[in-house]
């Protein structure tokens, strides 16, 4: 809850974005869907959280009071700090998804789950579930489009009904969802057959075409990240405002 700490974090995230080579415009674009929410949240915090929070080591000062609306230095700080935190969070998550392919993330998850296989977590199988689901999303998306066109050509009512008729809305959705599920199951059955025909016995003893190895850069990134987090946590009380 400090301006200085958040300014540092903001600078570091911006530095990371510049380092990654992803264009800033792209990252800011990811901020757009969240903007209305950030603004509404900020207004609510500004107006109603005046008494809830006083800045660390400072006396509470009232800037404005009218009825139950109460704006203090605490609520102003709360607004700025939580907006900054939100921006940092969104920047970091979109940085991950913009720099790492889904297959790489899956391989990473598989490697991370590996130590847990000793305790009964089927790491390879779980990673395979992830790969299959990511692989099936575009296929099923195409299928969904076909189904929607097919239903529309049969005269399915896709027009918006009133919200009160939500049971018939659910039936409408079911007209698209049910064929989608059935198609997915059918494709799944084919895949099961294909895997069984090729004697799939799980991940043990399998070699992998893609082998991820830790490079010096990875250790460096981990090290810097860890040191930075520990410093920020440890020096928490040294940021006065």
């Amino acid at each position: 809850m400090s301006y200085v700490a958040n300014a540092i974090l903001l600078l570091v995230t911006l530095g990371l974005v510049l380092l990654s080579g992803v264009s800033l415009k792209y990252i800011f674009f990811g901020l757009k869907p969240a903007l209305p929410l950030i603004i509404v949240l900020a207004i609510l915090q500004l107006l109603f959280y005046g008494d809830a929070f006083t800045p660390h080591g400072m006396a509470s000062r009232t800037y404005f009071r009218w009825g139950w609306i109460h704006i203090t230095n605490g609520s102003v700080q709360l607004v700025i700090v939580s907006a900054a935190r939100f921006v940092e969070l969104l920047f970091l998550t979109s940085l991950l998804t913009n720099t790492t392919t889904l297959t790489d993330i899956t391989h990473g998850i598989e490697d991370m789950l590996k130590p847990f296989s000793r305790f009964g977590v089927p790491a390879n199988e779980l990673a395979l579930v992830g790969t299959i689901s990511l692989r099936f999303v575009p296929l099923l998306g195409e299928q969904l489009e076909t189904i929607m066109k097919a239903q529309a050509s049969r005269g399915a009512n896709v027009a918006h009904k009133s919200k009160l008729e939500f049971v018939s809305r659910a039936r409408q959705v079911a007209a698209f969802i049910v064929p989608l599920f059935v198609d997915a199951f059918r494709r799944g059955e084919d895949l099961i057959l294909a895997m069984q025909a090729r004697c799939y016995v799980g991940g043990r003893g399998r070699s992998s075409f893609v082998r991820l190895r830790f490079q010096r850069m990875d250790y460096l990134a981990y090290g810097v990240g860890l040191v930075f987090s520990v410093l920020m946590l440890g020096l928490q009380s040294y940021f006065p405002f």
Partner: protein
Amino acid sequence: MDESVVVTREPRLDEPRLSVRSIVVAGVLSAITILMGWTRLGFVPVPTAAGNATIMHVPAIIGGVMEGWIVGGIISTIFGLFSFIQATVPLFKDPLIAILPRIFIGITAYFSYAGVKRINEYAALVIAAAVGTLTNTILVLTMATLRGYMAPGVAVTVGITHGLPEVVVAAIITVAVVVAWKGVETGRGEAKM
């Protein structure tokens, strides 16, 4: 779900295993969950303040009902992960709210289905959908209250206005899908329970 896989090497007993069927069904149903989230097809407008009832948890319920609690648990975990990644609301940027409560959707759905199945399969499907949906609503709101995002009174209101339409919608879709699939499976081209 027994399958006749030719095992080239005797698997050790302590090695965790998931059958090919479980892996594939979990993967495919998770894909539907992700697709429903991306296309906004997973949100049905309802007349309450919340505006939308989600049906994104329905694949988890169906997976639990059809392939057991492990598959249901995996799909609901992926649903949680996806809603955590996609979240724009601070409430769901908290993994303790977005992921942890969701794990149990498919698990409770399976056990309630298994319990009632012997009496009436149709009723069992409706009950599984209701229990799975309420697991989602109640656990998420409980966690939100415990983590201090919501006052208990607000949580109860949201639970009632949000939970009840979701139960109705989820039950309709679960029954429709499972009945349709069982119809295909028996090759009759029509539903048979």
